[in-house]
């Protein structure tokens, strides 16, 4: 109420002030205006006066002049006259606002004008004769001036009137204003006073209200205090109740509750005991600030606590002595002196008890608080306890459930597996059954066959016996038949000879010719029969040898006599060489030996052309005489050499036609020589002549009867390879200088002379040798050094050569080593398959040559060459040793340190595989690999080894020259061994099944040639294969490893005609790459073929959507790809 009044008052006051102000303002403005008007009036008056004065001056002047006639009196006239017009005009201006006044001024102006004109009309030079003219003029002047004066006065009066009016008005105005102001001020003062009073009243009221409030406040305070306390209790209740929920276990609950109580009440110490009805004990669940020796369990009625627990009410124990407290306190502050016990009862059951230690003054409210919560806490305890029990049970159940579940899952999976396996088993059972059946059948068949074989063998045996008998009969028969055959033939010959002579001369030339032919044919036939009979006789053993000492010189002489003529006739030089020292005699059948030599010589002469040489040489060899017949004829090719000794065989079927002969000579010679206890050997090559050598013993025993060669020496047991042996020291060899991986040849020969010869020969061929002089020693070395080849003599001490051979071929590891037998013994009893070569002693130089050639080619074909370039890396040294040891049977390993050495080695030798170490310098490494690749043969497998990390770009560069890259970590040796094995395996495969690279099989056309293709794929196999395919078609291929690189390549290489884009690539996949390519305007029409492994229906769409022109699935069919590319490039 008061406020409104105040506002009204204020508003009024302000209004009034404003009014007053306005009025004052108005008045003052008025005053100013008035003032202006006054000014104006004064101005007018002034001007009027001025004009008047001017006139007066002028008048005076003229009068003066008139009076005196002195022009000097005109001075004021002349001074004022010019100013007059201006002054009048000025006055006119000043009064322009007042029309009346203006009129007056105008009148004045006219008056003035008149006067002026009058004066002007007077000629000043006129001399006045009398005063009348002067008097007239002056009268006129006076009249006019009076008019002027009256005008002036009129104006002046008017102005003064105006002034007065204005003055009055002004005064009136001021009076009014003063009145108004006074009124206004009075009003304002009134209002102000009223307001003051109102305010004062308000204040008074306020004060009264304040006092009332104060009283009320006091009241409230008291109520508040009471409420606070209640609140305190309630809040306490709430927080404690709050602490009752959300606990995981009883212990937690007691802890939280106790803490809540303690914090709330600021108890010094507190304890919460749980009552276990089973043991009738109070268990300490949680405690705050109690000493550690506080009893965990308290029985009912025991001590204050136990006693308090039996109560239903809260009990308070006061005045606890300070010494009671075993609570230690660092500050030694005053200890509380009251204990409060709150037993927790629920439904007549004790659940627990809370003990709290506090100060006495806080007891009351604590008791109140406790009283209000004990019920809830009791419930809480019950619930928590029950919860605990439930939880434990639940956890158990959960555990079991989980176990069950996982077991179930496992069972399920195992079940599935079992089902699968059962099916597989069933299937294989079926297979097995069928196989069993088959086997049974095969078994039966085999049995039958064996029976048949047995029968066949028996019959063969019988047949063989029969054959033997019959052949004996045959020979006997032939021998006996000689006479029968020869007799008729003889007649034929004699008669033919006679005819041939044509003694009578009565035959025609032709008839003589016929006779000659008949004779010749007959002779031939006779020779043939002779030879056959001879041979069969010899074979049948029906030939008697007449052994006697035959001097060599005699033989030589006989032969010379026999053949020098023939030699001369045929223009062939015939030489005879006899041993230089000593006279040798052969104990032999002269006739037969001569027969043989004759046969050989006649063959030699037969097959040697004109100008050739036939040499008969007698040389002493050990204990034998070698009689050799050498010619420079057509020679005998190797494959025919055995053949010619067979009966009826000649080197070439047409030989007999060209050269004559029965073809039996050599067979007979061979048999004869054998009978005489000698050996026959042949060295010849086609076109290079032949040398037949007979080796005859100088001291012959009884002529050797042929043995029936059917026994094979069966060695019951495979001799064991000895673990140690006394190593021979007679002959020097290279076993101490052998390095791992170096190839060697084992020579097992008990004749030191020959052994050295072979050894030196081996050295000359570049091989290292190991020499053994006994059979067991030979076996020992074979196992220890695993040589590349073995040269084996059969006649060895301790263990015979045959046993050694048997042992070698029975050993898994050693059986692959080729064995070359060089022996004095017979070929017999040594299977062809078992030895790589068989040479009889004494052998000639070229036989040794041949043997080593065979060894050499075996090594070459069998062994692969691996070169390791260490570049100073120890790890590669170690790896080399391991490699050489592991592959001694099939690898020849070479170790070099530097690039220069490596290149040198490559130039001198064929290397199949190179393992090269590379350092941190990538450029240097690539340089090394490049030079290696360029120097080595085309398909050499190169493995690069390095320690450092490389980027994919590095890998790409390295892969240009290296087939495989190995990082030298701890397992590098194992990996390198694997790589070598892989490479060997690959070689093996290409050897056995040379893979014809899948050639493009479509129509040959060159539409793709010259096109540039961008291939983006991160699968190196694919990249390699496709690059080869496309380059074959004459295309240029640019590769990228991922989408990002593809875009870069597209940017850098202009003129790309087509893109092959893989989809799954890192950094940026094919979809994204294609989308980006299409976003570039120039590439909107660029053909892009997507290569994808994804074959689902929607994938094609996805590719096309991303921007592919077409797509093809991996693995890529080359033909299909090419035709697809052709389609897209033809546009």
């Amino acid at each position, binding site marked *: 109420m008061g406020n409104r009044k105040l506002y009204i008052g204020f508003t009024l006051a302000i209004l009034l002030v404003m009014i007053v102000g306005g009025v004052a303002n108005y008045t003052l403005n008025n005053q100013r205006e008035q003032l202006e008007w006054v000014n104006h009036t004064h101005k007018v008056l002034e001007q009027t006066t001025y004009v008047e004065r001017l006139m007066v001056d002028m008048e005076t002047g003229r009068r003066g002049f008139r009076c005196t006639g002195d022009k000097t009196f005109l001075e004021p006239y002349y001074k004022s006259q010019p100013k007059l017009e201006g002054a009048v005009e000025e006055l006119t201006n000043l009064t322009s606002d007042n029309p009346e006044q203006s009129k007056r001024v105008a009148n004045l102006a006219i008056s003035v004008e008149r006067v002026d004109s009058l004066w002007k009309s007077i000629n000043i030079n006129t001399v006045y004769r009398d005063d009348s003219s002067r008097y007239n003029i002056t009268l006129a002047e006076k009249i006019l001036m009076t008019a002027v004066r009256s005008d002036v006065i009129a104006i002046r009066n008017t102005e003064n009137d105006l002034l007065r009016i204005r003055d009055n008005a002004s005064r009136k105005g001021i009076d009014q204003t003063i009145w108004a102001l006074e009124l206004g001020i009075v009003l304002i003062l009134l209002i102000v006073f009223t307001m003051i009073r109102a305010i004062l009243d308000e204040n008074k009221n306020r004060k009264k209200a304040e006092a009332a409030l104060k009283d009320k406040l006091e009241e409230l305070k008291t109520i508040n205090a009471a409420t606070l306390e209640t609140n305190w209790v309630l809040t306490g209740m709430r927080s404690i109740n709050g602490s009752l929920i959300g606990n995981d276990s009883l212990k937690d609950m007691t802890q939280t509750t106790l803490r809540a109580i303690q914090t709330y009440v600021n108890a010094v110490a507190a304890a919460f005991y749980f009552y276990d009805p089973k043991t009738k004990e109070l268990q300490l669940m949680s405690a705050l600030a109690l000493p550690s020796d506080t009893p965990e369990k308290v029985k009912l009625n025991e001590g204050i606590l136990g006693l308090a627990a039996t109560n239903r009410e809260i009990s308070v124990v006061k005045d606890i002595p300070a010494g009671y407290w075993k609570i230690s306190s660092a500050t030694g502050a005053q200890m509380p002196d009251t204990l409060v016990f709150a037993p927790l009862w629920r439904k007549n059951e004790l659940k627990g008890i809370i003990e709290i230690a506090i100060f006495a003054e806080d007891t009351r409210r604590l008791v109140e608080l406790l009283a209000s919560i004990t019920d809830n806490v009791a419930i809480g305890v019950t619930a928590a306890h029950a919860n605990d029990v439930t939880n434990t049970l639940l956890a158990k159940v959960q555990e079991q459930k989980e176990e069950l579940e996982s077991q179930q899952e496992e069972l399920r999976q195992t079940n599935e597996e079992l089902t699968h396996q059962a099916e597989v088993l069933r299937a294989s059972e079926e297979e097995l059954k069928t196989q069993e059946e088959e086997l049974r059948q095969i078994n039966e068949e085999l049995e039958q066959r064996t029976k048949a074989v047995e029968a066949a063998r028996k019959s063969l045996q019988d047949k063989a016996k029969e054959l033997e008998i019959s052949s004996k009969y045959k020979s006997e028969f032939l021998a006996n038949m000689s006479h029968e055959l020869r007799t008729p033939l003889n007649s034929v010959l004699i008669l033919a000879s006679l005819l041939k002579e044509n003694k009578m001369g009565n035959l025609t030339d032709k008839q003589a010719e016929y006779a000659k032919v008949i004779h010749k044919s007959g002779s031939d036939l006779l020779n043939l029969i002779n030879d056959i009979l001879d041979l069969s006789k010899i074979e049948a053993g029906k030939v008697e040898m007449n052994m006697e000492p035959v001097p060599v010189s005699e033989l030589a002489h006989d032969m010379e006599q026999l053949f020098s003529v023939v030699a001369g006739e045929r223009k062939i030089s015939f030489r005879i060489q006899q041993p230089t020292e000593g006279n040798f005699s052969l104990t032999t059948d002269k006739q037969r030996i001569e027969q043989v030599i004759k046969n050989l010589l006649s063959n030699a002469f037969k097959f040697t052309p004109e100008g050739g040489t036939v040499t008969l040489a007698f040389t002493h060899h050990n204990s034998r005489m070698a009689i050799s017949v050498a010619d420079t004829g057509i020679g005998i090719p190797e494959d025919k050499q055995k053949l010619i000794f067979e009966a009826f065989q000649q080197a070439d079927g047409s030989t007999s036609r060209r050269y004559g002969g029965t073809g039996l000579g050599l067979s007979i010679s061979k048999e004869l020589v054998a009978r005489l206890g000698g050996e026959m050997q042949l060295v010849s090559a086609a076109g290079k002549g032949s040398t037949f050598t007979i080796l005859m013993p100088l001291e012959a025993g009884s002529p050797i009867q042929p043995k029936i060669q059917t026994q094979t020496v069966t060695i019951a047991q495979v001799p064991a390879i000895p673990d140690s042996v006394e190593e021979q020291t007679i002959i020097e060899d290279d076993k101490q200088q052998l390095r791992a991986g170096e190839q060697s040849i084992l020579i097992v020969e008990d004749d030191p002379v020959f052994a050295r010869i072979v050894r030196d020969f081996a050295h000359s061929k570049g091989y290292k040798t190991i020499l053994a002089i006994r059979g067991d020693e030979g076996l020992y070395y074979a196992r220890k050094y695993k040589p590349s080849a073995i040269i084996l003599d059969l006649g060895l001490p301790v263990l015979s050569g045959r046993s050694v051979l048997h042992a070698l071929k029975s050993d898994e590891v050693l059986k692959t080593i080729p064995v070359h037998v060089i022996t004095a013994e017979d070929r017999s009893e040594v299977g062809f398959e078992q030895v790589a070569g068989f040479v009889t002693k004494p052998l000639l130089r070229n036989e040794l040559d041949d043997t080593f050639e065979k060894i050499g080619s075996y090594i070459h074909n069998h062994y692969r060459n691996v070169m390791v370039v260490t570049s100073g890396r120890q790890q590669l040294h170690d790896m080399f040793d391991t490699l050489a040891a592991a592959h001694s049977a099939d690898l020849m390993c070479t170790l070099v340190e530097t690039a220069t050495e490596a290149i040198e080695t490559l130039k001198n030798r064929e290397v199949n595989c190179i393992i090269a170490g590379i350092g941190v310098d990538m450029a240097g490494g690539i340089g090394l690999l490049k030079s290696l690749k360029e120097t080595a043969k085309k398909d050499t497998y190169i493995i690069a080894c390095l320690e450092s990390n490389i980027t994919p770009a590095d890998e790409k560069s390295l892969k240009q020259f290296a087939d495989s890259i190995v990082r030298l970590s701890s397992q590098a040796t194992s990996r390198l061994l694997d790589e070598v*094995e892989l490479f060997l395996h690959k070689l093996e495969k290409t050897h056995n099944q040379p893979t014809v690279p899948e050639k493009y099989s479509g129509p040959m056309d060159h539409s793709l040639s010259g096109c540039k293709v961008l291939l983006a794929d991160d699968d190196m196999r694919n990249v390699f294969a496709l690059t080869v395919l496309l380059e074959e078609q004459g295309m240029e291929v640019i590769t990228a490893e991922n989408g990002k690189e593809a875009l870069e390549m597209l940017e850098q290489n202009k003129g790309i005609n087509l893109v092959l884009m893989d989809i799954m690539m890192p950094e940026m996949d094919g979809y994204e790459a294609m989308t980006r390519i299409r976003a570039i305007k120039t590439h909107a029409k660029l053909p892009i073929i997507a290569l994808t492994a994804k074959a689902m229906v929607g994938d094609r769409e996805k590719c096309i959507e991303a921007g592919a022109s077409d797509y093809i699935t991996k693995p890529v069919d080359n033909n299909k790809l090419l035709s697809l590319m052709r389609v897209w490039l033809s546009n």
Partner: protein
Amino acid sequence: MPQELTSELLKEIVQLIFERHGYDFRHYAEASLNRRMTRFLQISGTQPADLRYHITNDKSFFFWMLESLTVNVTEMFRDPMFYKSLVDKVLPILDTYPLLKIWHAGCATGEEVYSMAIILHEAGLLERTRIYATDINMANIKKAGAGIMSLEKIKEYTANYRKAGGAADFSDYYTARYDHAIINKQLTKNVLFSQHNLVTDNAFNEFQLVCCRNVMIYFDKELQNRVLNLFYQSLAPRGYLALGTKESLLFYDGMSKFEVIDDKNKIFRLKIDG
């Protein structure tokens, strides 16, 4: 009460899926497929009789079903002994390769890929490895790519990691957010996640290690043979193949091409003449 999903009906449905959407479940192991389908029916509240209709006409329904059929349970360092074996027997050999490519087929939500990345990292091999992680289920791939894992399982994973021989602080490998954990980005920066269907798609690269665990138990023999052959074509010479502990090479025609590195943990290696 839901109808039973009979074997015949399942076969029909599978055929329909193949014809309509191109996904080939015809060679999945029947028992497990049936279980999953039944579970899906329960979850989606569909009657078996209505399946045909939904599959044919409702594409989003189909994809929902697809996801539930191809979800595989996985965890980090599943079968810890397997990882230990990898570390002891395989990684030292892989160390000899300057650059490595590993294919993790059927990676599900990626936990096992992260495990692989961790053991590679601890062996110092992660920098030079590119891991290709594929799965048939695109949702899985996305999740795997995001690197998200359930936070409550981390305890279990840590235990597994320890059992596998891990000695580092496992929490270094992930960051915990409010309700999930994210695998450290450094570990997955060399991993390429993409979709690939083992049933229909072909080999797309050559790897030193192919890892496919607990995927083939859901395939029948024929499909297992096909998939194993696909792996064979994806392996570099002397490459390694790792399968789940309950799986085997038994159903593969080319079984003899592999030698056994660890029989219990099913780690195999291509022979030289393989």
